[in-house]
């Protein structure tokens, strides 16, 4: 059933709030008052609720079924964490309220930092970045500042493997670096020879994801770090996949200098249709002095918030955001950490890896794993070799999964694998659900090989919409609703 847009429901003069309109004395506004209508519709509360509840039912969600988006880590979001984040002491706290009235919040940030540092064996953490890519930005800005402080500001290059998330090269470019790609070995890891060759004195940093986007642990990670450091560069680790090793392996033990942690992946803060996230960055001793403001310090008189780099940390590179970062996510992530504890977090990594390997094992007969030898970590990567000759593409196969009640896996990423299908189940799936998923995929694979092309080319059939025309959308972008020529334009509001 189609749901009308809010602009089509005729509510140009309606409202869903009861405000006593104040009489307007505009003498303090210097003639800046609006005169023309804004063009915003309003709806009564019942209509509003219905509009959004109806819309919501058109979404897939982790609460409905497996959501195996590789590298996106769609796991269960505990409702305890939602409840905690809504305590007035956190939700109704102003970011600039007097510090003496925010001691609990600062304590929580301090405790969260302690957990992150302990889990990574890194001495410092910058909490403020608002998402993973923002954390990458923070990390590279820290590295840049460190180089500049050492008189190494001339270093212009960042090395990035081809398999990297797009955010890695984009961030490096954003900070003004040139990006050079590092080759990959046939078994899906960084090519050490190529790396060594490219580690010139111009290199500021390498950015390596570990476990990498092929779902594999970089076996030579310690060697990579050594080579990098020997070249005078820093090792930035993309921590998007930290969930695979949390509680079991500490990046600090591997020689990492900076790593962002997606709280919305490893520590299960909800994705909310694409955000908000949170991307704290842990830093090595070498980089710690260059961290951005603000940060929390504890002292005799309780917790303090250092908000300006000027006095207390002259080397800090500046500021990533207004205020302190994603406090709402800090509360959720901290609640998740406390719930799991050191033992539970270790189990998280183990079950995530176990689930991925189970899927890989069950599907490998019918589909072609990109790296069949050895275990994968938290996600299983397949290529489209097994679809050859069927006329079915990775995209078609993915859309057919929708008709089986599942969200498709990540497709065509990483770029190093042809027609990639990256499946990440996470640790919060039961064996029953994994089996239901594998059974569905095996049946689909059989259908594809049996030549049942229609089932794929036309898919999805059972979703709220059939396949959408993305080319049309991009050719002549229609990004906002505008009244049809026949629509009566909203009348200016009568002065009441």
């Amino acid at each position: 059933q189609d749901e009308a847009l809010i602009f089509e429901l005729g509510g140009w003069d309606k409202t869903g709030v009861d405000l006593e309109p104040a009489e307007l004395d505009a003498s303090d506004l210097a003639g800046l008052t609006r005169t023309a209508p804004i063009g915003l519709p309003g709806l009564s509360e019942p209509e509003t609720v219905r509009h959004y509840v109806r819309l919501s039912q058109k979404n897939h969600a982790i609460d409905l079924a497996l959501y195996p988006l590789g590298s996106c880590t769609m796991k269960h979001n505990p409702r305890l964490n939602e409840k905690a984040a809504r305590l007035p002491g956190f939700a109704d706290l102003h970011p600039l309220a007097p510090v003496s009235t925010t001691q609990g919040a600062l304590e929580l940030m301090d405790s969260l930092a302690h957990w992150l540092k302990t889990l990574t064996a890194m001495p410092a953490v910058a909490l403020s970045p608002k998402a993973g890519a923002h954390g990458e930005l923070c990390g590279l800005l820290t590295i840049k500042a460190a180089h500049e402080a050492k008189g190494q500001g001339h270093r212009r290059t960042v090395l990035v493997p081809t398999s990297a998330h797009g955010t890695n090269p984009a961030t490096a470019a954003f900070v003004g670096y040139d990006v050079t790609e590092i080759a990959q070995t046939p078994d899906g890891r960084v090519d050490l020879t190529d790396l060594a060759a490219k580690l010139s004195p111009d290199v500021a940093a390498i950015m390596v994801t570990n476990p990498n986007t092929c779902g594999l642990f970089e076996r030579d990670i310690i060697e990579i770090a050594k080579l990098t450091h020997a070249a005078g560069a820093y090792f930035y680790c993309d921590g998007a996949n930290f969930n695979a090793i949390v509680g079991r392996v500490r990046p600090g033990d591997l020689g990492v200098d900076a790593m962002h942690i997606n709280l919305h992946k490893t520590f299960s803060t909800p994705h909310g249709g694409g955000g908000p996230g949170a991307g704290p960055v842990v830093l090595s001793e070498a980089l710690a002095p260059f961290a951005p403001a603000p940060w929390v310090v504890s002292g005799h008189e309780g917790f303090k918030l250092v908000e300006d780099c000027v006095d207390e940390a002259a080397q800090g590179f500046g500021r990533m955001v207004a205020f302190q970062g994603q406090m709402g996510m800090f509360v959720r992530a901290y609640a998740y950490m406390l719930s799991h504890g050191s033992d539970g977090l270790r189990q998280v990594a183990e079950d995530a890896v176990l689930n991925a390997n189970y899927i890989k094992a069950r599907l490998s007969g019918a589909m072609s794993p990109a790296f069949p030898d050895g275990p994968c970590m938290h996600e299983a990567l397949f290529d489209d070799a097994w679809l050859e000759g069927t006329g079915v593409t990775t995209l078609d196969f993915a859309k057919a999964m929708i008709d089986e009640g599942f969200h498709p896996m990540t497709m065509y990423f990483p770029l190093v694998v042809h027609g990639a299908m990256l499946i990440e189940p996470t640790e919060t799936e039961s064996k029953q659900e994994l089996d239901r998923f594998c059974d569905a995929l095996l049946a689909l694979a059989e259908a594809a090989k049996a030549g049942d092309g229609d089932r794929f080319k036309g898919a999805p059939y059972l979703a709220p919409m059939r396949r959408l025309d993305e080319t049309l959308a991009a050719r002549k972008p229609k990004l906002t609703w505008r009244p049809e020529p026949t629509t009566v334009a909203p009348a200016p509001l009568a002065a009441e």
Partner: protein
Amino acid sequence: MRYLPLTQADRAQMLGVIGVSSVDDLFADVPAAARKAELFDLPRHAGEMEVERHLNSLAAKNRPAGAGPFFCGAGAYKHHIPSTVDHIIQRSEFLTSYTPYQPEIAQGTLQVLFEFQTQVAALTGLEVANASMYDGSTACAEAVLMAKRVTRKNRAVVSGGLHPHYAAVTQTIAHAEGMDIARLDVAIDAEAAVVDAITPDTACVVVQTPNVFGVVTDVTKIAEAAHAAGALLIVVTTEAVSYGLLKSPGEMGADIAVAEGQSIGVPLGFGGPYVGLFACREKFVRQMPGRLCGETVDAEGRRGFVLTLSTREQHIRREKATSNICTNSGLCALAFSIHMTLLGERGLRDLAAVNHAKARQLRDALAAVPGVEVLSPRFFNEFAIRVPGGAASCVEALLADGIVAGVPFSRLDPKAGLDDVLLVAATETTTAEDIAAFAKALQGRTL
């Protein structure tokens, strides 16, 4: 552990299917030296009741804004949020979905984003808006970088009335991209100085209205001067409710409008997550950062929505992307959009009028306190006052009276030499009793 569905029997069976004898075998690629056998030095797991108790105790160590008279603003505002908003954003289908990469099963999120974009475009008076940014400060920095892409020039003129945090974020990021940031002197009515600072190599001019001192400014003349110099005008707003009463950035000639959307639908939350609004003229759309949602049709010709123009984005263009952004602030954008739908044009105008009226009442009450000087000549719901003896110590002193008096400007910018300037804000949540108590306490402290 309550979040982990596998039983020991499941695990054993699955290891058998995989063909390994223990889960350690699956971690074989980890260098032996880094494979930790022991648990890290952190507490073990805890039941829900224990965790909840601990978090309750931390929350209880904070004083929420709603606990008494409260006048902080400076980029984050205490507003009433209808309970419908929180109810809807907690729905599983919104809360626990991912970026809508598969539009066939994400029309809920996508239609919301399309509606959000339209609302933001209408509010800012511009043609297109994106599907949200992290917050207002990062939106501001992104706008400056976008101006560089559009104009291919490198200098940004930043008004001294821009929120110091926004200025710092912009400076940090734009500087890294090699831009030259000319931040003008901090002053209450700082926008007056902007026009003279515009040079031919200026990529953009950044002004804020209402500015960090609450001062509202007609930026039309600044727009004309910027355009004459081939520069873009970026208008920043940190109090989105002001859109209900004041001329929109677009009406005054802005090319890009960015704002902090927290005031509509998003709780204070100690600073985040918030939602950045970002709108611009249509001709610049392909230089915009962030996600965009567009209308299209499905295989049966029905209207639907998709993420579009993603060739601007990092997951397609990698180092050539307009921004490195991946995550947005979708759930906060949803909250903003729901609240805005509840308000409608009528409600937003009423809300803005109430805010302004309360601020005028506050101004009148504080202006009557001997020794206090009101500094902002024109304002919406926030203004600056000079308090004798320093703003920070004034706040500290009034706290003892149960009043959170506002934000000392020195906290935002200790170097500006405005230690006696206090920023005070009033909203619809401010009561006449709050105002009277503030004025009385202030009088008691200044006498």
